[in-house]
């Protein structure tokens, strides 16, 4: 039978060795959702990283070598992210992995980094499980604050509303939402023992109809709500909750710790944004008062680079992720992952929103969140964070 020959031919064809990699660039594999709903955040993060790479290369690179970014579309799927990470390592011979967006992708890729002894920096994944003692290994590092900080800073905002007695929560039903709400409840019970949790709703990720959750929550008559619904889901949620009188019923007393204070979210909702709620952002982008000069310059460069009218609040994470890595390489004086992993411990590096430092024990930076009330501003056709306040991790860590 001749088919067997074909079969052998195909096996033989797979033996053609991959082209030898040019050794003169430092290769950084960057899996990130670039298609589907999560690309709304994945694309700006990659843009930020690309801008960082072009700036670093323009100033001569690192250790005399240029950086090369290999971006790949992870489709926000853990399965695909793992496949890409392994392909990047064994086929493209990347020196480092940076990237992944969601709390599902990052822990999966972390396994691959550990196995291949390659430094992996996760810019935006928040789940505490990524760097929990059981999962921590020498090569994993995280830029964003974790779900504990999200929950606790949200609790600190609500604890400040003295007349609030009845609090409800609504968060997506998966690791990220569950972990943040657990942290919120623990913290607010200590900070304000007089507050009662009257209702908890768990819509699923990608929920298209929030009405039953909204109605059920309104029936419990909360004074304030801790919300962790984010991204496209928050857009759907806010558009459905508005007409049902949800925000009016709670007097806009909502703290959302899912980065819905970012310009991306405000632009997507336009005038449907529930003005008056409190939320957080990695980067407020529009910073009417007391804006640091470095941030202003960064946003200007970003707008020029992306040719967009308003910059994204997520680009900072991609931008900072590359600087974190290059500072590590510089300190190690090498691109060897073992040396860079050691150099990253306790390393401080500058970002447009201030200095960040990797904790030696947790492998996380001390990055906090910008919190503020989302208000209407006549200068912009969307909601803007009023007086963004940087809540550093300090008081909220274990």
């Amino acid at each position, binding site marked *: 039978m001749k088919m067997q020959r074909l079969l052998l031919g195909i096996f033989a064809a797979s033996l053609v*060795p991959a082209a030898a990699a040019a050794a003169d660039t430092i290769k950084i594999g960057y899996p990130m959702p670039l298609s589907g709903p999560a690309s709304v955040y994945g694309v700006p993060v990659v843009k930020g990283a690309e801008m960082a790479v072009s700036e670093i290369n323009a100033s001569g690179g690192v250790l005399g070598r240029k950086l090369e970014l290999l971006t790949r579309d992870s489709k926000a799927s853990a399965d695909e992210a793992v496949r890409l990470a392994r392909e990047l390592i064994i086929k493209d011979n990347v020196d480092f992995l940076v990237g992944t967006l969601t709390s599902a992708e990052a822990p*999966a890729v*972390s396994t691959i980094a550990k196995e291949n002894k390659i430094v992996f920096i996760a810019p935006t994944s928040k789940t505490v499980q990524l760097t929990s003692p059981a999962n921590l290994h020498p090569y994993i590092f995280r830029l964003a604050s974790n779900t504990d900080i999200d929950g606790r800073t949200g609790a600190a905002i609500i604890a400040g509303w003295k007349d609030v007695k009845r609090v409800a929560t609504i968060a997506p039903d998966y690791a990220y939402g569950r972990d943040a709400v657990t942290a919120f409840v623990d913290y607010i019970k200590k900070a304000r023992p007089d507050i009662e949790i009257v209702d908890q709703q768990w819509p699923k990720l990608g929920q298209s109809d929030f009405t039953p959750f909204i109605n059920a929550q309104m029936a419990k008559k909360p004074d304030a709500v801790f919300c962790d619904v984010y991204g496209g889901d928050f857009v759907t949620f806010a558009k459905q909750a508005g007409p049902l009188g949800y925000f009016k019923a709670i007097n806009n007393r909502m703290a959302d710790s899912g980065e819905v204070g970012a310009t991306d979210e405000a632009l997507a909702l336009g005038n449907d944004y529930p003005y008056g709620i409190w939320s957080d952002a990695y980067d407020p982008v529009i910073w009417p008062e007391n804006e640091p000069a470095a941030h202003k310059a960064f946003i200007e460069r970003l707008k020029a680079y992306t040719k967009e009218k308003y910059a994204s609040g997520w680009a900072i994470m991609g931008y900072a992720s590359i600087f974190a890595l290059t500072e590590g390489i510089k300190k190690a004086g090498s691109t060897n992952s073992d040396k860079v992993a050691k150099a990253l411990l306790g390393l401080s590096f500058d970002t447009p929103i201030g200095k960040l430092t990797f904790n030696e024990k947790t492998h996380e930076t001390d990055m906090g969140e910008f919190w503020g009330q989302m208000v209407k501003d006549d200068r912009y056709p969307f909601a803007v964070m009023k007086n963004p306040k940087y809540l550093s991790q300090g008081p909220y860590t274990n």
Partner: protein
Amino acid sequence: MMKKSAPALVRRIPWVLVVFVAALTIPWVGSRYDTFLATQIAISALFAMSLNLLLGTTGLVSFGHVAYFGIGSYVCGILMKTYAVPFSIALPAAAIGSALGALVFGFFCVRLTKIYFAMLTLAFSQIIWAICYKWNDVTGGDQGIPDVPYPNLDWMSSIPLLGDLRIAQQFYVLTLIVVMLSLAAIQRIIASPFGLMLTTIRENPERAASIGLNVRRYELSAFVIAGGFAGIAGALFGIFNRGVFSDFVYWPKSAEVMIMTILGGIDHFWGPVVGAATLVLLNQEITSYTQYWPFVLGTILLLLLFVFPGGIVGGLTTGLEWLRRKTGRRASA
């Protein structure tokens, strides 16, 4: 289809063994990446082969075959990661678990025919997906079960040559052994009287029933066997992929394995293997040139279905047959 004109000698060569030996050389002659691809091909081939037991042999169109692949990967992943059970127990457990799942779902599915059968298999696979996606405490929900450990392969280090390989390459060798044993078993099943009954049912279920065959029971048996082998493929894939995720059970995977099978050719034993190899390699090659991979795949499928309805192997067989007739008996060498 076995060709009558093929010399008896060719037919008597144990091809599974030949392919096994050829594929076994990859870790030594190829790069790490080649081994990576070959592992993926081997596992996909078993998965496609198990589907073909339904599709090609019995004539049952299942849109939900991924359910049993998924059950296998979750059973093996949970046992190995959460309970630290050795692979030698986890793998059979995965096969049994998937076969049991197939028994329960198949019991209902074989009561329907044609499109209703197909839709019910799809419905059951979506139920399995929903369970895997929501049952956080056991399946890890959307985060899945990352970091499924490799099996303990210390025994390989005492074998010359094998001992020097990396763990991923040793796992490839293990995968190859499991897959080839499974393929040999499937070959025996197809050639057995039981297999011939399945073919009879495919050709004419009414007639098979009229001569006294319990069609449903035969179909259910095929469904359970196919489910069990899919479970073995799933268990291997979970380890290969270094984690088990709910995507494994989502319906596009069912479509993917069906494309592999049809691409290779459902009428030939090696069809699914060729289809799996082709799809994995094409996916790899084309995605590095263009992001319009689904477009390319669609075009290829379209061409294939119209020009070579028998798939790659079917087309090749026809082509060679034609060539042989043209050139006399020369091509049989």
